């Protein structure tokens, strides 16, 4: 086993990078951007190297590092990854450089400097790595709460018009969840002290102890509420559309792509193994929330007029699928859920990015302000379509594999919930295609006709198209299609192509050949689910281990 502390390096490198970027003298924005890109790429390389060093068939937690931190309370600075955490680290490694590149030309509101933005971004990366790599519950909690700070500033300082409201809402929601979890973490410590004689926060030790069912339920709820707010499950979701809509695009991508996954990751890593009895007893209620989320959020997404809110709502629906996969207690569904976490980060990340590119061109988040973009910007439309199709889980895109696994894995144990969730795939097609049709298809509309807001880079600086201003006013009064657009929407720039290309490639590649990731994920999921793989009520369901005994 390698002795190089990859995980520590993945935490330290971006943290140091953040400090350096923050300390740069004012006005060195270009240098800050290049530095951030370099650092985030370095983290990606580290993540890839860590994956190479990881042995899928080996021990549960690998690449471990442990230093005593607060010995009096048995708190260690303990890091380690299983397959589940590792793929999340890979996702972080991929998304952050893409986000840096996508935010290259962002204009911060007011007189703020982008330097601060990139510094917060790198700090956030460091803390996100920490949250997934921690194997000490207390350390996890610290990272979990610390993550709020950079995100708060990213939303509150660099977001849209209602950024203050959104940032405070985000912070308060997360804080409430965090405090409930803190109580549960302390409770866990107390229980471990009475069971083991000496209190500990180490995940591996906590997993071994048997907790009284009543206590389990309370502790489970403590963790669950925190994670359900983070994930978010309906009805704890209303902060996400606000935050997702107001955050700068890069922030939205990381918020929905990675930060929220801490919630579903927490379900799988902490709720299930630490509180198996409570998980089993309360699973039906969780599943109700999950499936309600799938249908409810999908319908809500259809009713949105703000593109970023719409995408946020689609994410809530997807989190419902993930929760369904986790609480179905089968290896297939659990593996699908973890894969879903990765795939959703890529697919919805791409959707947010491409929506951001569109917004940068039109200066409006309203669906109704766009129309007929495909004609003028086919590449943009193509990427939009790929992102949309990935979001509706079309076969051939990565999301299909995970959604399919979640559903087919959940069906044997939870047929009713699965059937209801499957209806969600029709709704997914509806909200994606409605969005696509309204913005990309049809005759030019909205900002393409009337002028919109100039955003520097995105627009063609060529004066109004053939016919000049008179033609444009004529088209406004007499909407005779095809109207002559006054503004030409420029297709993707080279930088934007560089942002979209790796994401599109991942969408397709993971859609066609997902098995390597699955092999990475499966052992950890199987270990988690092994406690649950029994036929609950004997309703004719074949337990999964009858064939897998070889």
């Amino acid at each position, binding site marked *: 086993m390698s002795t190089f502390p990859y995980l520590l390096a993945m935490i330290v490198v971006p943290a140091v990078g953040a400090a350096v970027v923050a300390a740069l003298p004012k006005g060195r924005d270009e240098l800050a951007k290049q530095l951030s890109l370099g650092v985030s790429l370095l983290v990606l390389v580290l993540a890839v190297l860590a994956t190479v060093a990881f042995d899928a068939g080996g021990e549960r937690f690998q690449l471990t590092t442990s230093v005593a931190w607060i010995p009096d309370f048995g708190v260690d600075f303990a890091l380690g990854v299983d397959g589940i955490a590792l793929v999340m680290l890979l996702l972080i490694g991929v998304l952050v450089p893409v986000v840096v590149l996508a935010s290259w030309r962002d204009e911060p509101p007011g007189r703020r400097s982008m330097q601060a933005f990139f510094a917060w971004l790198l700090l956030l990366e460091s803390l996100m790595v920490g949250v997934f790599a921690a194997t000490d519950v207390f350390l996890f909690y610290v990272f979990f709460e610390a993550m709020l700070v950079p995100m708060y500033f990213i939303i509150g300082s660099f977001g849209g018009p209602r950024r203050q409201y959104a940032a405070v809402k985000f912070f308060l929601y997360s804080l409430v969840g965090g405090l409930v979890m803190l109580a549960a973490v302390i409770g866990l410590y107390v229980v471990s002290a009475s069971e083991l004689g000496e209190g500990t926060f180490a995940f591996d030790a906590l997993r071994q102890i048997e907790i009284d069912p009543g206590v389990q339920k309370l502790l489970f709820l403590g963790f669950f509420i925190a994670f359900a707010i983070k994930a978010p499950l309906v009805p704890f979701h209303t902060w996400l559309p606000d935050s997702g809509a107001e955050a700068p695009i890069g922030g939205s991508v990381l918020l929905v792509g990675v930060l929220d996954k801490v919630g579903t990751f927490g379900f799988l890593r902490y709720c299930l193994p630490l509180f198996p009895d409570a998980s089993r007893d309360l699973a039906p209620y969780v599943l109700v929330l999950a499936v309600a989320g799938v249908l409810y959020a999908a319908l809500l997404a*259809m*009713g949105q007029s703000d593109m970023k809110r719409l995408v946020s709502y689609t994410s809530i629906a997807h989190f419902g699928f993930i929760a369904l996969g986790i609480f179905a207690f089968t290896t*297939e569904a659990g593996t699908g859920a973890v894969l879903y976490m990765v795939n959703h980060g890529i697919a919805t990340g791409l959707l947010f990015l491409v929506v951001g590119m569109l917004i940068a061109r039109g200066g409006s988040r309203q669906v109704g302000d766009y129309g007929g973009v495909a004609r003028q910007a086919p590449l943009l439309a193509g990427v939009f379509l790929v992102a949309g199709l990935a979001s509706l889980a079309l076969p051939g895109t990565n999301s299909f594999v995970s959604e399919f696994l979640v559903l087919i894995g959940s069906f044997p144990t939870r047929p009713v919930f699965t059937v209801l969730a499957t209806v969600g*795939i029709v709704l997914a097609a509806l909200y994606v295609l409605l969005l696509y*049709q309204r913005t990309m298809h049809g*005759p030019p509309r909205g900002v393409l006709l009337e002028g919109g807001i100039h955003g520097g880079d995105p627009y063609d600086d060529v004066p109004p198209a053939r016919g000049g201003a008179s033609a444009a006013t004529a088209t406004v009064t007499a909407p005779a299609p095809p109207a002559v657009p006054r503004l030409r929407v420029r297709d993707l720039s080279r930088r934007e192509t560089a942002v979209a290309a790796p994401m599109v490639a991942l969408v397709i590649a993971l859609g066609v050949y*997902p098995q390597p990731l699955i092999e990475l994920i499966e052992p950890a999921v199987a270990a988690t689910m092994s406690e649950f793989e029994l036929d609950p009520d004997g309703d004719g369901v*074949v337990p999964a281990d009858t064939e897998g005994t070889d």
Partner: protein
Amino acid sequence: METVPADGLIAASWLLIALPLAGAAVLLLGGRRTDRWGHLLGTGTVVAAFVLGLLCTLQLDGRQVEVGLYTFVATGSLDVPVGLLFDPLSAVFVLLITGVGALIHVYSIGYMAHDPRRRRFFAYLNLFVAAMLLLVLGDNYVALYVGWEGVGLASYLLIAFWHERPAAATAAKKAFIMNRVGDVGLALAIFLMFAQLGTVSYDGVFGSVGTLAAGTVTAIGLLLLLGACGKSGQFPLQAWLPDAMEGPTPVSALIHAATMVTAGVYLIARSAPIYDETPTARAVVLAVGAITLLIGAIAGCAQDDIKKVLAYSTVSQIGYMFLAVGLGPIGYVAGLAHLLTHGFFKAGLFLGAGSVMHAMNDQVDMRRFGGLAPHMKVTFVTFGLGYLALIGFPFLSGFYTKDAIIEAAFDRGDGWGYLLGGVAILAAGLTAFYMTRLMLMTFFGRPRWEPGVHPHESPPVMTAPMVLLAVGSVFAGFLLVVAFPLEEWLAPVFGEPVEAEHVVAPIVVSVLVTAVMVIGVLTAWLFVGRREVPAAAPVRVSPVTRAARRALYADAVNESLLMRPGQWLARALVFVDNRGVDGAVNGLAASLGGSSSRLGRTQTGFVRSYALSMLGGAVVVAGALLAVTAG
């Protein structure tokens, strides 16, 4: 029938899918650089696939050959390999898809010559061919599902090819959504198979389907049927197919007539071992087929849009195929034979319609056609042959295959058999009526052209495929039924043909069908051919005509039962979420803030009031102490 591992050329049959897929990838990623030769590449890959498919078929020799590729997904007890199954059934489909596909690609070179986005058109067509081949070649239901949704995507892209037109964009979306409804059925069927049998491969499922409870098998059968209905435009999911005619005409010919919409028939035929176990589901298939073939035929009689007439005709003809495969072993081959001949003549008819539209500046309203026969001789002749084949003119393709289906229906022997046979014969008469009406309105009578239209024959690159398809329309039926019986070719899949005991002698059926056909033609001539066709559709018409024009109100039903309530629900939920769920949270925050400012009011700044509260507090504490010590 044992499957054998692949050898020879068949081992390379994955190239069938890879070739068009690579073509699509090159054309989409290559950008404008490929504009000049993109259409040639697109056509070339499909022609190559056809040649390869033909060679593979010649090597097949009645075996079922398995081509394992790689593991797609394997976790827990689920194992989904990517594998191909090359057997007589899929071979037939491969030849149909690549053969008709290649002809339509050639035609499209001419048809799309002036479209600035021709390269992308060919990319999408290639994508379609690849997905369709995956659909018919996959050796498990998941691979089929991937191809199934893949053709749905290609269909979406191609219907919306002229996406500036809102009607096209809407039609594409409608097609995709209605297909997705069907896909849910297919997906659930797959889940059910996995939950009950632990496998999704054809081999595994068919091998152990007999062990399942009858209710479960019926459920699987009905769910599969739902999927098939979505893709094949069958009742109750038929409304998308006529709208799909917004796409370019070659698309209508390839996807929405010859291949994709017949995927439902393939699915049911492929799943024959499942349906063999469940007479209930099979009866539902029959009912769906019979209802649809009538709906399609009735709606076809009242349309003025030439492509819509053909579309409803397709709906109706696929209804025939469903009816056939719903009959069970006696109908499978008849249904598939009709599928193949239909592929020829309907594709030919669509290409002919495209040629007419090409000549008439993209006009589709038949009331603005008329008298085109002398101006477009090749189109007229090829279209006419397709027409004769479709209405079942003796000794042309449709005559053999449609008769076979009607015979099989009567062969059921019971009252239902007579009913189904009767419905099928009635629909044959309606078919003759609406197709004759189409012929008369388009090619005969006085010209009713819009000003400035100068009809001209299409270039050879378009007429050549039409000629080939016309030849197919004439001879395919004879070849498939008499000369080289499809029954024998498909025997490894469906079992050796059994000589059915005919309830009604075949000759009687033939005479009856021909007579009804002649009546249909004469009626059409009475209504349309004898008198002048008005350039605008008459407004005062009978309720029957009005219902037929609106396709028996399928859209109205969908709209009022699903779309409107759905929109209303979405809007209501947005309100609930903003005011209810979010309102509760914001309300909590507001009430906390409010109560804090109200509590702050007690701090008046008057020392005496503070003193009073101190005194009150002291008294309370003293009282409490007293109570504790005393009690």
